[in-house]
């Protein structure tokens, strides 16, 4: 009997002292942060302006989102200030969006990114965005559909990138891989307030050299960046047919392959990037010829390939001007021509490299109408 009593006491002690008692987190005592935003608080970027968006679930609440902001020398300092003002514990495990203003990105984001990296609870799969406007303004923007700005941005980004726009989804972890890479550089989608302040839209791509933003691209140029990278899948592209009275054609590029060949390795290496892809569904056209005829198909293919070749080469030149390789050429050369890469400084070599891009698109589906 005594043994049983001792066992019962032991079990009770174990039950009462299990981990939940110390690490319990009642949901009504948490402020779950859905979006983090960063602006520079001073022009030199020494002070950081942190903005958070959290959903409010109480039925009788006046608003469905809670915006909080604070300034600090570092992210941690600003977060601690926010925590002191908050009546609940701030939780970063469900962050969906991290928005960085263009102004901050041009100053450098290494400190912010590395501080997020050290927080184990932070959701490393959060989407990264660069805002052309101040993040504070973007987070205060109220879409017509909903007040929940963080969820709205997250859904808009994923819907856009999956269905329409060539702008890629970039998660925090994807960018960190590039930031920690020897020869690679990253890019982040650009988000802007458009239509005279009435809408939010993905407008293109911000490209980086290490942790600093060095330039940006519009939607078409973004398509070319992704094409050169070989990361284009199921994206629409609209262009004007030459010598055909301004006829507009929209094609859906269904994904292709990029082949990189090195013709010469020297002070200015000669590199050729060849992109081949299939495209389907002429979604919109008023061509005089019947599109089901082989000549008409060949004509569209030729015009499309030439158009994209010209666009891709223009983007390549522009990127060389920015001085950062975002196309994975450096990592490719490091893998296949390691001796050469050890003998050169790729950051200096990339801008003067002679890189030619050629695009070859084949139409394999031309829609369901013959006229």
């Amino acid at each position, binding site marked *: 009997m005594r043994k049983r009593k001792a066992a019962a006491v032991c079990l009770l002690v*174990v039950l009462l*002292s*299990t*981990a939940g*008692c*110390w*690490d319990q987190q009642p949901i009504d005592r948490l402020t779950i942060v859905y979006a983090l935003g960063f602006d520079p608080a001073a022009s030199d970027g020494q002070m950081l302006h942190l903005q958070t968006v959290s959903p409010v679930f109480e039925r009788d609440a006046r608003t469905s989102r809670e915006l909080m902001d604070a300034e600090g020398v570092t992210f941690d300092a600003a977060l601690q200030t926010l925590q002191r003002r908050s009546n609940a514990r701030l939780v970063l*495990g469900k962050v969906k969006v991290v928005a960085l203003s263009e102004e901050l990105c041009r100053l450098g984001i290494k400190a912010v990114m590395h501080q997020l990296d050290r927080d*184990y609870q932070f959701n*490393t*799969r959060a989407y990264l965005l660069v805002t052309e406007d101040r993040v504070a303004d973007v987070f205060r923007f109220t879409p017509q559909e909903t007040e929940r700005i963080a969820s709205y941005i997250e859904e808009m980004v994923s819907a856009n990138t999956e269905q329409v726009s060539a702008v890629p989804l970039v998660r925090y*972890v994807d960018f*960190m*891989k590039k930031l*920690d*890479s*020897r020869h690679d550089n990253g890019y982040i989608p650009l988000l802007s307030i458009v239509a005279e302040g009435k809408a939010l839209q993905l407008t293109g791509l911000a490209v980086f050299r290490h942790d600093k933003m060095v330039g940006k691209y519009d939607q078409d140029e973004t398509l070319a960046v992704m094409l050169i990278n070989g990361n284009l899948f199921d994206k629409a592209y609209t262009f004007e047919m030459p010598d055909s009275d301004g006829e507009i054609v929209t094609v859906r590029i269904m994904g292709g392959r990029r082949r990189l060949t090195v013709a010469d390795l020297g002070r200015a290496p000669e590199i050729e990037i060849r992109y081949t892809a299939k495209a389907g569904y002429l979604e919109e056209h008023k061509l005089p010829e019947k599109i089901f005829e082989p000549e008409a198909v060949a004509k569209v293919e030729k015009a499309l390939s030439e158009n994209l070749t010209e666009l891709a080469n223009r983007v390549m030149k522009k990127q060389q001007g920015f001085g950062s390789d975002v196309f*994975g050429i450096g*990592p*490719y050369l*490091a*893998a*296949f021509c*390691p001796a050469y890469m050890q003998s050169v400084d790729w950051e200096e070599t990339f801008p003067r490299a002679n890189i030619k891009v050629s695009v070859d698109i084949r139409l394999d589906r031309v829609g369901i109408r013959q006229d």
Partner: protein
Amino acid sequence: MKAIPENKTLTDFQMFTFLTGIIIGTGVLSLPRVLAEIAGHDLWLSLLLGGLLIGASGTVIVLLCRRFPRDNVFEISERLLGRFLGKLIILYYILFGVFAAAVVTRIFGDLTRTISFVRTPRVLFIALLVLTLAYILRHDLVVFGRYSELIFYLFLPTLSFYFLEIGNINWLNFLPVGAAGAGSIVRAVLPSLYSFFGFEFMLVFYPFLKQKKNDMKVMGAVIGFVLLVYLFSAVAIVGYFGEIRTLGLTWPLLDYLKNVRLPFFDRVEQLFLFLWVQTVLITIGGTLLVAVQGVTHLLRLRHHKFTLPVLIPLLFALTFIPPNVTQTYEAVDIVSYLSIGGMFVVPVLLYLAARVKGGKTGAKA
């Protein structure tokens, strides 16, 4: 050693799960970083070389055990090397068993406090773990064997986690092959060997194997399976993060799993940790059992459970010696160096002695 009754022996599969459970402990969490620090993206080559060496040592161990199928390493060493040297070897196994179990317990405590239960006192985790261990170890080895078998079925599906991000693996991260240089690749073989510690405990538990004719198959399966798990882990992590980022992560496997998503489960690494805790229990229990068996043999006790009132508190006390994580990993280094003795020195020494002295050969149950 007197013959072990059939109902107290382990089946091939139980022995396989028991030994793999001991090997796959805390090392798997940090192995890719540790190897990448020396061999860079060629870590997989070091792992393969390490696996080959472990395979050779495993073969020697099985050949030695076949000569003395009813004896464990304590009896074999006393018989072949004499009482003094034999007792030194027993002492080595006792010290190694207790220290290694204490170090793994401490890492477990530190990790759960860093990742999941930040505010819960470390002492509580360790006390709960040690109490559970004491309960399991009171019984015969067969209970531990059954427990290992059960946990293996639970842990096996977690291997699929390595493949969930396979689409995001950049294979260029592994090129050019051999860039680290032969010297670095060979130097990284040593830490890869440490990660296999546990397979050599076959020397202690061999008499418990029911079908001794399958001994070589069991050993081969243990080493092959663990090598495969380590290779999957190293390739998935370096392929996903790249070499430089991997070097900056304390427990790269957990960071990798943090980025894996299942459609119905958000934080996969927490699920992994929950299942991993069970295998850590086998690692700590199996390692401590070596010390337990050693003390039992040294003091000629009737049952190993009589050693637990001393060894369990000792284990508990030792886990609190390192003041911080850095010093815990210094203790890991010491245990790693010590493990080479059990993995290579003792088996080869005993095997050579057996060849010279001519122990029993070809005896099979």
